[in-house]
């Protein structure tokens, strides 16, 4: 038995869509009995590669062999379990009916079907929900059902396209456990993800960047090269961003980013730690992560990304609390999307709302932007009560979403003109601010290009520039860097850090643990409630144990949700007992 014969072999695989090359000369193999992480930012070619392996797309060049066949002949689908993005479930069919459909399509006989249903429903914890419509399941449960459908016919090859995007960390771990078990049974599992922390846990990985295979192998091998080069330096809150900027600019430093209350530093090979400024804490060595390796690979390949300067005159600080939410609730019919959420954000603070999709983050966000009226409670932004003077409040806030609400067919200059006009800037002030934006965000070279044609990094800068034109005191950032590559994320957050140092307040929503690390404080949003808040380090510290001395933010998140559910369960069962 050639148990270790690769399940998938890719040789010089190339795929083009019109003028763009989605995959460029990818050579790799995927082994059975392993979880292979297909890692890369959005647009790197992850989905295209999975679709090529599934036989949904035809390669333009190179060769592909799936499960010992040349190419992807029809019939091989029998042995492939595929879960596309958004899980590919029929939402108007129940859990049972979705499974039955897949059982019929695979022509499972009655006995096998009963055995597999029982096993998978038990395995995924979906048994109590067998009669529920798939559309009424939570994100995490949908994902498990999608996985159960893909696993039904015992595939030899399991292809999962971003199975964990936007799902709460507890469900993510659950899913990981299931796939790990399948891999243990000899399945070749491919798990695509934009979360770099997931790559650390894979047996092997394929790292894609802009259609090219940047690296592959085992994550341990990749990070081993950085052994002894990664450090954490504790920094007081008011000097963190400055220290990060200083270290990032140092030639011996590959990468410097904010991680909770510390600055994480990765040095060049053989370099000594730079001379410490007065009062700096001593650097503590730390275990290198996949992201550190990714960044150092990117740094080798490209020139250092333009890091933000001081961004002078971009905003005016507010006085008092920049954002005050008091018992904020919002009902949609009988459904309470947000339930008595209260928090304050101080001027110059970066506050993150962290939670899975559907937890209520966006609803809180919209209420604070003045786009949605709260059902109960109050909100003040930049000193203005949103119930009384929404329009005035809006003049003081800037908004940027991950989807960059830019006009793709207008030039960079036209976009800035437009947003300047929308924010009511006129004459001299508009000219000055646009000139400032082009200069501060290095957009001078692309002023007359269409915004839609720009590379992602430029778009991100343009979107932020547009949001800052009217010198807002409070900045609302909606998943600003989810799915972008780590260099772009660093560039973005160093700009936000510079703004915060000037007193601009930022409210961020995210389901990305990576993004959350950049925040001064976090509110954990779960099922419409804020179940905890505090600095990332505070939250992590609560879950430190002897077995797990340095818990990650995800560990903290999972622990908080478990504690919340347990408390809720106890509260619910008490009246019944009485």
């Amino acid at each position, binding site marked *: 038995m050639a148990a270790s014969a690769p399940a998938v072999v890719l040789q010089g695989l190339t795929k083009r869509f019109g003028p763009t090359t989605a995959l460029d000369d990818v050579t790799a193999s995927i082994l059975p009995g392993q979880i292979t992480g297909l890692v890369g930012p959005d647009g790197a070619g992850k989905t295209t590669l999975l*679709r090529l392996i*599934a*036989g*949904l*797309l*035809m390669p333009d060049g190179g060769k592909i062999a799936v499960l010992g066949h040349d190419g992807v002949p*029809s*019939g091989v*689908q*029998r042995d*492939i379990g*595929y*879960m*596309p*993005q*958004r*899980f*590919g*479930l*029929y*939402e*108007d*069919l129940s859990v049972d*009916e979705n499974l*039955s*459909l*897949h*059982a*019929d*399509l*695979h*022509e499972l*006989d009655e006995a096998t079907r009963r055995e597999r249903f029982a096993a998978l429903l038990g395995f995924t914890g979906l048994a109590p929900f067998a009669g529920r*419509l798939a559309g009424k399941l939570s994100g995490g449960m949908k994902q498990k059902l*999608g996985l159960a*459908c893909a696993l039904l016919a015992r595939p030899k090859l399991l*292809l999962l396209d971003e199975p964990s995007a936007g799902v709460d960390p507890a469900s993510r771990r659950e899913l990981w456990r299931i796939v790990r078990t399948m891999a243990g049974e000899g399945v070749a599992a491919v798990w695509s993800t934009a979360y770099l922390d997931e790559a650390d846990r894979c047996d092997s990985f394929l790292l894609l960047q802009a259609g090219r295979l940047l690296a592959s192998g085992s994550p341990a091998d990749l990070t081993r090269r950085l052994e002894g080069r990664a450090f954490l330096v504790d920094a007081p809150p008011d000097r963190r961003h400055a220290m990060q900027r200083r270290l990032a600019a140092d030639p011996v430093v590959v990468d410097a980013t904010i991680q909770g209350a510390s600055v994480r530093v990765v040095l060049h090979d053989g370099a000594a730690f730079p001379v410490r400024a007065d009062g700096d804490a001593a650097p503590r060595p730390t275990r290198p992560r996949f992201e550190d390796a990714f960044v150092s690979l990117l740094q080798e390949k490209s020139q250092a990304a333009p890091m933000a300067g001081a961004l002078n005159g971009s905003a005016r600080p507010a006085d008092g609390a920049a954002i005050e939410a008091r018992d904020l609730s919002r009902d949609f019919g009988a459904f309470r999307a947000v339930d008595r959420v209260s928090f304050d954000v101080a001027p110059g603070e970066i506050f993150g709302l962290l939670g899975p999709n559907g937890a209520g983050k966006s609803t809180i966000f919209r209420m604070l932007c003045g786009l949605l009226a709260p059902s109960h409670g109050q909100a003040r932004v930049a000193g203005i009560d949103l119930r009384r003077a929404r329009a005035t409040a809006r003049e003081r806030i800037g908004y940027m979403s991950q989807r960059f609400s830019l006009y793709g067919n207008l030039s960079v200059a036209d976009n800035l003109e437009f947003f300047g006009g929308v924010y009511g800037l006129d004459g001299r002030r508009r000219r000055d601010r646009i000139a400032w934006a082009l200069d501060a965000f290095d957009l001078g070279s692309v002023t007359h290009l269409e915004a839609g044609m720009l590379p992602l990094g430029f778009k991100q800068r343009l979107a932020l520039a547009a949001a800052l034109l009217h010198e807002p005191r409070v900045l609302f950032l909606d998943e600003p860097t989810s799915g972008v590559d780590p260099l772009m994320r660093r560039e973005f957050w160093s700009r936000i850090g510079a703004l915060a140092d000037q007193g601009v307040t930022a409210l961020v929503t995210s389901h990305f643990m990576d993004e959350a690390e950049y925040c001064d404080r976090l509110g954990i949003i779960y099922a419409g409630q804020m179940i905890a808040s505090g600095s990332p380090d505070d939250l992590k510290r609560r879950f430190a144990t002897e077995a797990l001395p340095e818990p990650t933010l995800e560990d903290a998140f999972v622990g908080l949700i478990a504690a919340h559910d347990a408390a809720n369960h106890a509260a619910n069962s008490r009246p019944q007992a009485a």
Partner: protein
Amino acid sequence: MSASDLLPGRRFRGLLRKEFVQIVRDPSSIAIALVMPVVLLLLIGFGISLDARKVRFGVVDENRSVESAGLYHAFANTPYFRPVSFLTAREAEAALMRGDISGFAVLRSDFSRHVIDPVRTADIAIIVNGVDANTARIVTGYAQGVVAVWLLGHRRDRAKAAAPAASVEHRYWFNPEIRSTNFIVPGLIAMVMTMIGALLTALVVAREWERGTMEAMMVTPASMTELMMGKLVAYFVLGLGGLAVSVTIGLFVFEVPFRGSFAVLVGVSSVFLIVSLAMGLLISTVARSQFVAAQLAFLITFMPALILSGLMFDIESMPGWIQAATTVFPARYFVSSLQTLFLAGTVWPVLLPNLAALLAFAVLILAVAVARTRRSLE
């Protein structure tokens, strides 16, 4: 291998069950297939009538005699007119301008004298709002008829004149009451079937693309033909339901006669339904969003069915090249078949060529749709 040999169609049955469960759960499919026919038939059936009935028609009586009053009553006694009396032509003109009346007749002050006079002819001016040419022609015709009938009776009474040398007796075959409803409703049924077939399938396939379920289905052992046929069969059944609803409304609400064979009706309709469904599948190979699918379905099936099928406009009186264009739209053959079955009966010389044309379309479009459907996202 052996399992698939022993249980052929297990996959297909699974797909079919899925389609029916979705139909039952999704109110929009039911609405399009069963509620839309009711609404369309009632709205258009009652709303669009090409007959003139209870037309408000002015009679300008400058004569004020027994004779002019007699003619006024002649107008009042037909079901077609509801006469309105005016003293001067100027007032009647104003009423016509306002749209209060569709036309008027002017009886001059010498009307009664000329009517009685065996030598002179009484001139009656009839002015009709010609904006809607069709209605104008009908109103003019009816008004002339009313005057002619009244004149005949009047002369007969007055002069005891001899019977005219010859008289014409009209008989309208197939639609003796010349009710436009009788030929519009069968046409509407064709339109409804076009909608159910093409729109519904194009929409549900596009929805599978949008929701990513098509992608998931493609990476299962199900073949594309099985996926497509599952849709075809499920929506065929739903379409027959729509047919039953439409025919029932036609027969019992609009009281359209049915002179053909029901078996032939179901047969011809089934073939047309397959044509429509195949058209929907073909659209779905191009349109991967529901928005585009709906646009295409309206543009290439619904509009031709409305305009170029002989439902609204007589094909014979179209310019030659448009007549030629109508032959490539299947709806025309179905409209003609339905009108024949409802009003004339099972007239094979008319039905056979239509049926042959529909069968040819069904085979052709289905073949193209299947050929174009590939297990690929490109």
